[in-house]
């Protein structure tokens, strides 16, 4: 039993060390920028795809409503505990 528990803990420890090298765990500001900015730069100047979403007041907004004004769109996953 002691060896089984040890094997599980050591396996988890190895996974903890290995996680940053997995496809899911690869991240980091510098790495993300290097990966994503060149790809995103090809989208500059292109037409925004049609979108519908809710704003903070619950109103439905579409891309057609946004035409004609300066606009900054920020997409963020919320951590609201």
């Amino acid at each position: 039993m002691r060896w089984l528990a040890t094997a599980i803990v050591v396996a988890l420890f190895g996974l903890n060390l290995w996680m940053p090298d997995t496809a899911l765990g690869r991240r980091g500001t510098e790495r993300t920028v290097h990966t994503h900015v060149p790809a995103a730069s090809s989208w500059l100047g292109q037409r925004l795809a049609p979108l519908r979403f809710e704003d903070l007041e619950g109103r439905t907004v579409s891309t057609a409503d946004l035409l004609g004004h300066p606009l900054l769109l920020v997409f963020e996953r919320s951590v609201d505990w």
Partner: protein
Amino acid sequence: MGVRRSVWEPRGAPPVNLAFRFVAALSGVSAIAVGLVLFGAFFAYQRPGSEAPLPMGPLGHYFAAFAGCALVGWGSALLAGARDLATGRRLAPGTAFALVLLAVYRMVGWLMGDYYALAGDLLRWEAGAFLLLALAFIWLRPREAPRVSF
């Protein structure tokens, strides 16, 4: 309040038992200290006009206080286990299991973007520390008392 020796721990006790006492006592004191901080944070949060002591809202502070109370209880049990090896022997497997659970949810939290954004690699460091501590509780667990017949 001296350290009570168990029936199977004669003078010149094996170093493994002394190491167990040390690990259990250190873990117990740490758990109690963190638990009291979490408990106190709840009350600090309730003061009118105060800033949140922890980076979360009312629900987060509520559950932090709950975790704090549980940590005080767990830490007290570990201190009892450090004093009495028979108690420590019973506590060690459950403690190791709880430490593994603490490590697992930190590892999953690291993989999730939300928690990584808050704490970064600290989550992985903490997970590693908890796993090492779990190994300590597994391997330093006091041995069973010899059966004595009268």
